[in-house]
């Protein structure tokens, strides 16, 4: 499953952030997005995930193939770790949650309420959700926030396994994950500020 993005332009709150962005993500590959804060990485990932429409351009191969993980993990504090994960597994129609618990060393926490977990443990639970979606393309926004060194290694392993099974990953991150993937700096695609004359027409 190849994800192809062609001449994409996106806006955030009505302000253009990136334009004429094209890339291709083949099966088994990872693409790391880089760029300064506010450049539009999150907006790009949300657009690819289908949460907002692009202003121009085309995204192919994103229908029902994307597992998105944003800044929030979608964890319910009053449910246990197992209940949280089982819910997503049932929504995505995937099978067992055991491999996901194993991959992020969540077995000891399985019966704890998610509200009692630390920030890093919550993040691990949020990332383990990707493994129960069964979706081939992972779209991840700053996945390693609040993770410690060993958890980052668990995450990198999970991504490597996923790539090995023919999946692919689009990751916005500032740290080096040691992944064998391409790096895309979105800086050069920064949208030109609108002309003042243009702006005045709307005032």
């Amino acid at each position, binding site marked *: 499953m190849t994800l192809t993005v062609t001449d994409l332009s996106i806006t955030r709150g009505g302000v253009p952030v990136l334009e004429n962005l094209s890339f291709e993500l083949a099966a088994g590959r990872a693409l790391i997005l880089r760029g300064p804060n506010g450049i539009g990485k999150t907006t790009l990932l*949300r657009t690819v*995930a*289908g*949460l*907002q*429409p692009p202003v121009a351009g085309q995204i192919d191969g994103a229908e*029902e193939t*994307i*597992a*998105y993980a*944003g*800044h*929030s*993990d*979608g*964890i*319910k504090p*009053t*449910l246990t770790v197992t*209940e949280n994960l089982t*819910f*997503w597994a*049932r*929504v*995505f*129609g995937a099978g067992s949650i055991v491999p996901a618990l194993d991959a992020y060393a969540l077995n000891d926490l399985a019966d704890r309420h998610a509200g009692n977990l630390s920030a890093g443990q919550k993040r691990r639970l949020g990332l383990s*959700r990707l493994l129960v979606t069964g979706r081939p393309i992972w779209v991840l926004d700053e996945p390693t926030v609040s993770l410690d060194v060993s958890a980052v290694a668990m995450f990198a392993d999970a991504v490597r396994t996923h790539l090995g099974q023919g999946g692919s990953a689009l990751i916005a991150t500032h740290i080096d994950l040691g992944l064998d993937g391409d790096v895309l700096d979105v800086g050069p695609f920064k949208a030109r500020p609108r002309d003042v004359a243009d702006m005045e027409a709307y005032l």
Partner: protein
Amino acid sequence: MIALLSRDLKLSFRAGGGFGLGLAFFLIVTVMVPFSVGPQSSLLSTIAPGVLWLGALLACLLSLDRLLALDWEDGSLDLLATAPLPLEAVISIKSLAHWITTGLPLVLAAPVLGVLLNLPGPGYFWLVVSLLLGTPALSVIGTFGAALTVGLKRGGLLMSLLVLPLYVPTLIFGAEVARRGAIGMETQTPLLMLAGITAATIALLPFASAVVLRVNLR
């Protein structure tokens, strides 16, 4: 879809889930009414159907705030929007879960509270029937209001203003069924109108809710 329904029900019964909030409010309103209007039983039985209906409606309104806001805050709504479930189904299930945890308890509690307001004998049956038919519409319309205001900080006031006018037809016909039933009059016309409103909202509003939710998720 069953997974989502069972999760929502589980969440509402767990600590801080808000189950019983509407019920407690309904109880307080109806218990306080005899104190405020006085103990004349003839007056109470005249106003009982209307007060019970109004209490149920406000109790429903009270719990709408949390319907989508909690899922929006913790990011679940983003994830549900990218899940294989259509957003229309997600919205419908959320409405159903809201009705089971708020509407249904109100329907069951109404006859008991009717006693406090000296509701005339034949009125109990019609009160329950009208609430059973009307409260699903309250949940579905409320979900639409919640979808419109999701993501707004302190959106509760705006949502009440948006939702209350939409509640008026249901209130008019629902209370009319209960009132006519209580005094032994024919109830068919308002009952059919009430059923029609409920059927139309259930059929149409989930689509509208899904559209506004997609816009709000951007």
